[in-house]
């Protein structure tokens, strides 16, 4: 067992960090130890100080910010302060969340060379070390590529290669898959697992979506909203004891645990502990048939749709220069419909949403909104009827206070002040931000910003809401709240078009799914039908949601059982 080894790699004692002008510490009294060869999963709701903690372990903080660090961090028994600048980075590497802002050179080769040069590697060894690192992450063919031409997944693999080339003993991963599509993030986790096994690395992984990480980590460390340690121990203990508490804190549960929790409540899961993997899940169920019955019942009945078409796209194409970003796409959105658009990174989803919002004009083809071409709408009329929510909530926010943010578009319409007041109050109540009215939008938490950005698009009672990956990088609680808002919107007869990678959302909310690949529409239909189209799923880097996978397995089992009886 790891805990039997007495030589610790990293040891934190009473670690507390506070930003300069703030009373409240980001995290407080953190004590934990990382042993050689161990992998820890660090969990917590967004804004609880996970990233800050990671930066403190790597000595990036408190130097990079104005802040105060109390307590001690030691590496192999030596205090971090005793290391010369840059020295600790050889031992502790880190991969950041944002693929865009972690490089400083233009080509793949130069970026790798940069780190190796910093470590004073003899120049004649650098070449083969670069090749070796690139081979590890399958990026060797891209050695001379320009970094900005790589996809998000490739950039994260490059970031990993850069760190690995320095041969660190500890690797910190700060939400490395937050910006990736399901298939790319799965690939990244498998690469990390292989490297961990080959090199006996110690890992500290910060993640929201846990499924791919459970099998490669040994234990988990959970922070609560206040930045204190809630739990430190094995996964099994963690999820068995705290599953519901974690859910309340807004931490995503692994899908198996979630399914286990659900079936346990229904009395058809009798395993002693909540399942951490697929095998345990199957083993714990009373019988495949009863489980199937239960899970099938859970499925939402399709909502009765009105016939009225609210938006229709006809033969949409969009080119930039010779590059065809979208090729002849047609579909319709009905009143009260929830349409999801999915596809791999860079397949043209965001471009399509911008076209639908009238932000870009199509190179050819036409969009009809309420039977009128989008181009013939007056700008302010259109904005009152059609809302658009950006992927990054900060992009949406342009006023100085939360109240002004909501009132912004109403003021433009020259609405009387008392009416504005009324609408602002109801909207703020709806998104649970009533007590934050005077705050600056950017000082809100991640989840609050998300709600505010959506709220700004609710005030005009827009009949169609377009959302560009609104649940990306959000914790479970925020995502839940957001989806509740969307359901309300649908109930009131509006339509929602949402770009998403989240297969669980497709599964439980979407009436219709449109799948894009390389700018072409390769699927349009119900989610249930989509899960059967294996070719399309693979092409678009999608993954079947866990419940569906489980149901498939159960069906196969029950068939086998029946065969065995006869």
């Amino acid at each position, binding site marked *: 067992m790891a805990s039997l080894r007495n030589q610790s790699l990293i040891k934190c004692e009473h670690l507390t960090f506070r930003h300069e002008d703030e009373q409240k510490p980001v995290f407080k009294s953190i004590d934990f130890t990382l042993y050689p060869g161990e992998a820890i999963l660090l969990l917590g709701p967004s804004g609880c100080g996970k990233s800050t903690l990671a930066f403190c372990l790597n000595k990036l903080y408190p130097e990079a910010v104005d802040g105060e660090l109390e307590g001690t961090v030691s590496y192999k028994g030596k205090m971090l302060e005793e290391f010369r600048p840059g020295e600790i980075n050889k031992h502790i590497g880190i991969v950041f969340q944002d693929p865009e802002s972690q490089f400083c050179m233009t080509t793949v080769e130069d970026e790798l060379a940069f780190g190796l*040069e910093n470590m004073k590697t003899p120049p004649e060894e650098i070449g083969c070390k670069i090749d070796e690192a690139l081979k590890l992450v399958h990026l060797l063919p891209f050695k001379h590529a320009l970094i900005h031409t790589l996809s998000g997944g490739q950039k994260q693999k490059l970031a990993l290669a850069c760190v690995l080339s320095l041969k660190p003993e500890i690797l910190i991963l700060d939400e490395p898959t937050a910006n990736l599509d399901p298939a790319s993030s799965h690939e990244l986790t498998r690469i990390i697992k292989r490297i961990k096994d080959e090199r006996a690395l110690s890992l500290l992984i910060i993640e929201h979506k846990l499924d791919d990480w459970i099998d490669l980590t040994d234990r988990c460390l959970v922070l609560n909203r206040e930045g204190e340690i809630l739990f430190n121990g094995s996964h099994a203990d963690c999820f068995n004891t705290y599953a519901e508490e974690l859910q309340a804190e807004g931490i995503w549960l692994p899908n198996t645990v979630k399914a286990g929790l659900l079936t346990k409540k229904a009395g058809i899961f009798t395993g002693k502990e909540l399942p951490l993997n697929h095998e345990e899940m199957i083993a714990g169920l009373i019988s495949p048939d009863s489980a199937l019955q239960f899970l099938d019942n859970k499925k939402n009945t399709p909502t009765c749709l009105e016939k009225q078409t609210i938006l229709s796209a006809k033969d949409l194409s969009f080119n930039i220069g010779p590059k065809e970003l979208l090729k002849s796409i047609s579909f319709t959105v009905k009143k009260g419909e929830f349409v999801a658009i999915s596809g791999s990174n860079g397949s043209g989803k965001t471009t399509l949403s911008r076209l639908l919002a009238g932000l870009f004009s199509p190179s050819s083809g036409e969009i009809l909104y309420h039977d009128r071409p989008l181009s013939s709408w007056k700008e302010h009329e259109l904005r009152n009827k059609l809302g658009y929510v950006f992927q990054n909530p*900060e992009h949406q926010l342009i006023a100085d206070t939360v109240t002004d943010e909501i009132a912004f578009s109403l003021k433009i319409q020259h609405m009387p002040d008392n009416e504005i007041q009324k609408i602002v109050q109801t909207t703020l109540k709806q998104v649970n931000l009533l007590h934050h009215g005077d705050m600056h939008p950017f000082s809100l938490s991640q989840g609050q910003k998300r709600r505010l950005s959506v709220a700004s698009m609710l005030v005009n009672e827009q009949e169609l809401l377009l959302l560009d990956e609104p649940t990306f990088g959000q914790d479970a609680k925020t995502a839940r709240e957001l989806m509740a808002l969307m359901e309300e919107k649908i109930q009131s007869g509006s339509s929602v078009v949402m770009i998403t990678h989240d297969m669980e959302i497709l599964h439980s909310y979407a009436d219709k799914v449109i799948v894009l690949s390389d700018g072409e529409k390769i699927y349009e239909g119900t989610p249930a039908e989509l899960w059967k189209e294996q070719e399309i799923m693979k092409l678009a880097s999608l993954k079947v949601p866990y419940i569906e996978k489980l149901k498939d397995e159960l069906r196969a089992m029950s068939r086998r059982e029946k065969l065995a009886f006869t």
Partner: protein
Amino acid sequence: MLLHDINPSIKALTVIVCVLILSVFFDPVTPMLTLAVTAAATFIFGKVSFKRWILLFSPFIFMALIYIWSALIFSRTHEGETILWSWGILILTEESLQRALSLGLRVLSFTSLSLLFILTTKPSEFLLSLMQQCRLPPKLAYGIMAGYRFLPLMKEEFEIIRSAHRIRGVPKARSLPEKIAELKRYAVPLLAGAIRKAERTAMAMESKGFTGDKNRNYYHKIAVSPKDWLFFAFFIAMVLASAYISWFFGFLQLYNGEL
């Protein structure tokens, strides 16, 4: 041999010295000859297409024409100058025509030298060379390199902010004061975004062990070889030869505060 292979620092030095020499003389022939040779070198040894070159060069032609025009129209005429043409108060003398041409061609020759450098040098190699040959502090050089990567991102960010405003129903700015107000509204989020990105990149650099230490071993060694000095010598000689030819035909004049 290609101009791309010349050491960037020496290339920059060559351009600077040529410009300095050229600015000593003030006659049309010296810069014209320099311009011709430099442009030819850019095409032949720089493998730069004429189309690309002229695209960058043409704004300067326009500028040179304006210079020539204003130097012709508004020049001081001195006693004893040969009058070529006069119309009302406008008098064109041979001397003022020569001055005007000298000025215009001077601008163009400087441009051609700069283009020779810009079109045949990779920014990253120039920075590496500045660090290795001219002892530019790595902190500054890598900072510039990281900033260089931001430019396209800034453009993207600008587009997004503009869309965000449109989405919220902000009417299009039409008059000048509206446009200025719009720019102000964009500036704050744009700068805030840039600062956040810069901070993140700085952390990423530090996490890779970058300390700004001047004792670096470089993977890409940018060396100085005799051919670089040959290049330097050739260009200096070329400019001096131009001046000599100009002198030989009696055009050469030293710059003496004309205009």
